[in-house]
């Protein structure tokens, strides 16, 4: 090396050091924050309704959790939050804050259904003059085609429709028609016959799996070729992991003219949904005004700054949710009850609360505390030595375990913690982290043979059946798009779910039976529930939060927000 080359190297090193020093100084100055500021973040309050204040474009910093943008396939909060205002079912919910948001109202149906005295027959009339966003008329037979398409897609929602007459046969053949659904395009009459009464069936008809799509829609994922919609908005384009654009449905005025009163027009003319992987980047973009809303959860270490500088731009809320670790009861070592119990004893739920930045409450229940059926139980107090003892007794010590999770937000940290715990009680555990957009379909596929992993659940509708029947009923286990990740199949519990399913209303007696079932399921350690999480919505300073609606099921209603 010549003298000149040496000087060049030395100067390069000097420049690098100077660069790092500047970077450190820049970052250091941002870290100073004041936790004792007087401003307060506010929780959503009840009673708010949509205001009419249109504006051009609402920019969302979205996370990577969209699985599909096809109403027959999507089963994530991210997917449904977008589709709630695009694909309308026969029934739906009021776009309001608070418990009133769980009130069922007619959307595409003229009225709420007429239910026969035995609770087995539901009769609707479709509104006249409805059109899809491409101008095609909406027909009554589209409803039947929609449910049949769900079956043809192997949709994660097909379990909801298993009680319709002929569903079992149709699920096998996927040919002909579902005999339990009859529809008349001339009169708009739709009749659904069930094999037995079902307390939550109207709620099921309000899910996105029941949202009407044209009968000719191909029975394959249409996320990137958006299906024509019936709601105030339509999806213009979707590029997975990059961007989705939602614009106004040109047919909406005419559809609304048919008498739909409980779906607001929406304020933004367009919603630009940018999909970002990093929580910190999304927060910074929103606070700097590059985006209007941050769907991500802020990094826990930045809450002080949010509180001190941006408290009037945040909303804290607690949706009905349970975060849990599933344990596949069909695979070793979790086929052994003692191992599943050991995991429940070994995880310190307070530690997991802290991993989520303190924005959570520890839980051992299946149901969240917002339910009248919730009755707190404490079967598994933290006891590491007991956990080790149970693993020793099971003879599964030293078994290799793969812990599954997606790569979004704080969730991978929960898996890192669980992996450490599993290693500490005698397993050889390692993590498997995959992209969040494919996570649920991957672990929901039996071929994956996922042993244990992260899961969370947000209610589709406020009924215990949405938890026990969807997630823990052994008769609803499927080969693909399975929601019962634990493959939990207990005959007594299946029978109890079937019996409670027939109850038309959630009386206090029925609620106490659900609470007992919660304890019964946890005595079998089907899951290791750990927290009920709290969330923060962050907006930029141009957004008028007097329009903010946080729906009890769909959370923040993008369409009703307005600018200052």
């Amino acid at each position, binding site marked *: 090396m010549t003298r000149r080359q040496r000087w060049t190297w030395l100067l390069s090193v000097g420049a690098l050091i100077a660069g790092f020093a500047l*970077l450190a100084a820049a*970052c250091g100055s941002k870290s100073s924050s004041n*936790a004792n500021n007087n401003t307060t973040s506010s929780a959503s309050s009840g009673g708010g309704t949509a205001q009419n204040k249109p504006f051009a474009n609402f920019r969302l910093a979205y996370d990577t959790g969209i699985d599909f943008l096809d109403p027959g396939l999507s089963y994530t909060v991210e997917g449904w939050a977008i589709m709630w205002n695009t694909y309308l079912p026969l029934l739906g919910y009021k776009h309001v804050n608070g418990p009133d948001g769980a009130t069922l109202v007619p959307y595409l149906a003229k009225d709420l259904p007429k239910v026969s005295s035995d609770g087995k027959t539901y009769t609707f009339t479709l509104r006249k003059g409805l059109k899809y966003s491409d101008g095609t008329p909406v027909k009554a037979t589209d409803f039947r085609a929609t449910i049949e398409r769900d079956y043809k897609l192997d949709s994660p929602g097909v379990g909801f429709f298993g009680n319709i007459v002929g569903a079992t046969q149709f699920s096998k053949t996927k040919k002909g028609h579902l005999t339990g659904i009859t529809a008349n395009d001339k009169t708009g009459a739709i009749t659904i016959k069930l094999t037995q009464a079902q307390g939550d069936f109207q709620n099921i008809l309000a899910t996105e799996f029941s949202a009407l799509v044209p009968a000719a829609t191909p029975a394959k994922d249409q996320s990137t070729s958006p299906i024509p919609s019936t709601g105030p908005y339509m999806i213009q384009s979707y590029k997975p992991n990059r961007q989705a654009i939602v614009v106004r449905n040109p047919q909406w005025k005419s559809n609304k003219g048919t008498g739909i009163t409980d779906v607001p027009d929406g304020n933004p003319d367009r919603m630009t949904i940018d999909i970002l992987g990093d929580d*910190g980047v999304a927060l910074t973009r929103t606070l700097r005004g590059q985006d209007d809303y941050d769907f991500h959860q802020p*990094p826990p270490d930045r809450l002080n700054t949010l509180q001190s500088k941006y408290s009037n731009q945040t909303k*804290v809320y607690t949706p009905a949710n349970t975060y849990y670790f599933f344990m596949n009861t069909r695979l070793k070592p979790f086929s052994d009850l003692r191992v599943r119990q050991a995991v429940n004893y070994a995880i310190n739920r307070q*530690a997991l609360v802290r991993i989520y930045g303190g924005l959570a409450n520890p839980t051992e229940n299946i149901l969240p505390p917002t339910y009248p059926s919730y009755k707190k139980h404490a079967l598994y107090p933290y006891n590491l030595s007991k956990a080790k003892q149970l693993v020793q007794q099971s003879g599964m010590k030293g078994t290799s375990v793969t812990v599954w999770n997606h790569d979004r937000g704080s969730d991978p940290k929960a898996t*890192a913690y669980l992996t450490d715990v599993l290693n500490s009680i005698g397993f050889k555990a390692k993590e498997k982290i995959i992209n969040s957009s494919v996570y649920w379909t991957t672990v929901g596929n039996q071929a994956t043979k996922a042993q244990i992993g992260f899961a969370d659940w947000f209610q589709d509708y406020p009924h215990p059946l949405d938890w026990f029947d969807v997630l823990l009923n052994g008769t609803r286990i499927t080969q693909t798009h399975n929601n019962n990740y634990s493959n939990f199949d207990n005959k007594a519990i299946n029978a109890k779910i079937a019996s409670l399913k027939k109850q038309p209303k959630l009386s206090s007696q029925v609620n106490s039976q659900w609470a007992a079932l919660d304890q019964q399921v946890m005595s079998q350690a089907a899951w290791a529930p750990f927290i009920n999480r709290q969330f923060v919505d962050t907006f930029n300073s141009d957004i008028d939060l007097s329009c903010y609606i946080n729906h009890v099921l769909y959370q923040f209603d993008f369409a009703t927000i307005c600018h200052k």
Partner: protein
Amino acid sequence: MAQPAAETEFTLDTAAELAADESGAVIRGRSPWYLAWRRLRRNYVAFACLALFVLIVVVCALAPVYARHVAHTGPNNTHVLDQITVNGQRIDVVSKGGVLNGKLVASTPVGPEWFAAGGRYVLGADTLGRDIAVRLLYGGRTSLIVGIVSSLICVVVAGILALLAGFYGGWLDFVITRFFDLFYAFPVILLGIALGAALAINGVHWGPIKLNSGNILIPTLVISYVLIPYVGRPLRGQVLSLRQKEFVEAAIAQGANPLRIMFGELLPNVASSILVFFTLIIANNIVLEAALSFLGAGVQPPTASWGTLISDGQTLIVTRPWFAIMPGLAIVLTVLALNVFGDGLRDALDPRAKVKIEH
């Protein structure tokens, strides 16, 4: 100019040799390796960088000792609810956070405690309460192992392919060269991400070869695989040129078999280039490993590597910037040390450098 004695080899290595030559002194014959060593040891900057690299390797190799006797924790052990004593006060390793009296309160792990916590959390903790210093050292072990082993595999495979293509020529050369061209067509990082992401999810199951998704051999093999053409192609050029030299013709005329010619005659003549490539490509591979791990296509969690540590530190970049800067700095120092040393080695081994010295 006086001619050197017949039995001596004149190398024009240094001014001293020139002076000796002019004075008619007898100069002993020396091997090219010895001469390269002589040139290298006078390059103090390269030697300082070699020393720095060796120091980094030794420090990382001692990670288990540090973890056991100083930090008292392993690289993947979580301590979310633990407390430590700093200057006589008990503090949480990870503060509580959440909503307190209606206000949002941040949850942050402890920052660098240096030696105030009795050797624990010298560089602070991450959000799971894992000791950053321990993970930095273990991460260094992983990054160095991946870097060195992948470079070794890369130069061995590339060297063999270059020898085969250069010596035999014809259709074999055509096939190997097209293989190199095919890989050249893809940007290294994209090819690495594609292969790394696919194999990181499913692992490798090729007949008897079974590697689980978390195995560090996967990123090691991916990195070595994508860089083979970048080493193989220039080496093939050198072999092609050497193939026409008289000593190769002479060996063929004497009836030496192809293996003997490739490994006995050609390989020693490209060995210096291979050595330089090896040194320089380690640095390159460390950076590539960091890039792939940062993007989730390299070393899989919870195994620490400098790349995964930067990725972990990214989530705390605003309040704890050092968590990302530390592994970044470790990469910079290691790569800088290897590149400067590699340049020095090339100057010492490359014949063109000798000409420069003559000037």
